[in-house]
């Protein structure tokens, strides 16, 4: 009896150590990104140029066939600030940040939420997704939703399946009348995104969470100073 108990304890300890070691090793290998990506797409939203016309979100809906009631991209409006006639609004972009360290991918039980190692684009495999909504809860930017048609999780994928496939820029970037959006590869020093980011101070949302978002923002001149 005592012998079998000791044997069991030994076995149990070995199993526990093995299982946790395996999990940690897998976790490290998937998050540390040993594979150098071929490119790493990023987007800059220049809030000083944005006029809140919603051309981007309308184009996104059309090109990516986003059903009514949900959206991959929203322009949030704050304001008005100041007195008539010098009133202004502040517009911020609400869409997937294509985090480099992705909470949504980490929690997905089936691997349906994944980051494309070649482009750094975070997307959803519609077929693999079971709709547990864990990723929706895990995304600190709260931009994921269940697509009412496919019943799978959905979000901005930098137009990977539509415009990028045709070798064109994302729909929202092309649609913007004031050229407030710049899209490109941040690993390429010649790209337009890198030029914009180097010439203008930018910020990113919720960087303290360690998600390393790849949507950069150039802060609007208007708006409140909040503490």
């Amino acid at each position: 009896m005592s012998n079998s108990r000791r044997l069991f304890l030994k076995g149990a300890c070995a199993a526990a150590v093995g299982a946790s070691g395996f999990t940690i090793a897998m976790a490290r290998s998937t998050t540390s990104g040993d594979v150098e990506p071929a490119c790493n797409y990023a987007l800059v939203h220049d809030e000083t140029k944005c006029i809140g016309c919603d051309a981007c979100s309308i184009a996104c809906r059309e090109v990516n066939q986003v059903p009514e009631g949900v959206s991959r991209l929203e322009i949030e409006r704050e304001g008005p600030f100041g007195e008539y006639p010098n009133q202004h609004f502040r517009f911020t972009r609400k869409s997937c940040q294509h985090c480099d360290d992705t909470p949504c991918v980490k929690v997905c039980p089936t691997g349906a939420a994944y980051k494309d190692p070649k482009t750094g684009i975070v997307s959803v495999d519609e077929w693999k997704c079971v709709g547990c909504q864990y990723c929706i809860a895990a995304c600190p930017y709260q931009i994921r939703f269940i697509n009412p048609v496919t019943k799978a999780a959905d979000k901005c994928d930098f137009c990977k399946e539509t415009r990028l496939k045709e070798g064109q820029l994302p729909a929202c970037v092309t649609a913007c009348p004031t050229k407030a959006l710049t899209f490109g590869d941040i690993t390429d020093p010649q790209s337009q995104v890198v030029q914009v980011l180097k010439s203008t101070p930018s910020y990113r949302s919720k960087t303290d969470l360690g998600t390393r978002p790849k949507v950069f923002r150039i802060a609007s001149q208007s708006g409140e100073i909040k503490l």
Partner: protein
Amino acid sequence: MSPFHFDSLIWHWPIAIYLFLAGVSAGAICFAVLLKHFKLGRDAYKSGFVQAACLIAPLAVFAGLGILVIDLTKPFDFWKILLFYNPTSVMSVGVAVLMVYQVALFAWLACVFKEPALSWCSGRWPVVEKLFNAIAKHEATITGFLVMLALSLGAYTGFLLSALTTYPMLNNPVLPLLFLVSGLSSGAAGTLLGGVLLKGNPDGKEVHFIHNIEIPMILVEIVLIFTFFAGLILTGGQSQVAAFTAIGEGFWGWIFWAGIVVVGLSMPLAFNLFMKASSKRKFSYVAITASCSLIGVLLLRNFILYTGQMTVA
């Protein structure tokens, strides 16, 4: 902000019930193991309390899994969770634990009910007899694994929520411990309530044994809840906001103070201390105390799930 509908709410009450049932199952089977091991021995299957625990454990885990599957937006694709596996996902690991847990659970049930099961078959199917004997040979190992798996299951329900960085109140290291301990106490309560309903003696040694463990368990739970909120408040920022939204005024504040603190913790504690003094326990005492604990834990799951999602990092 309405208590059941707000923008940042993703997971609704079915998830709270699932978390509750997983905890009840894990807790009930732990107490069945303890009762068999320390009090009843080979005759365990004759006790109404062990029978209740052995009914509750599998039923609760099935019901919980059923709710989880129905709550998917693509319920018919649930098998993909079993087929694909993501080691960084707490949900994946939890589903794996749940599957192995069920195997260990049934193997252990076979050990406990070997005698009555075999006499019921009365040698009609020799295969069954062989199977039961083969399983019973490894009872010590199965019991050990079952307890480990049950404890993992109890803690997993907390890890599932604490992995969410979005919500500062849920992203909290105390949560898995709190869920484990409250899950164990809900399992104890379920065992007691089921036991007296199955005509177990409300003054039997099983009840005395469980009640002796219940008092320290409730005290630990109180300490953990205190640590949980003290930690949030001392962290400051959005964590502090989340804590005050949860236990401040409003619907969920009431649920916390009246439902969880008074009904779920203080009343069972008071009853238990009172029953220690008066030696004789009656059916109604046991049933009411156990019901209070169960209600408290069910409210705690809902409270944490809803208020946890109210504040975003």
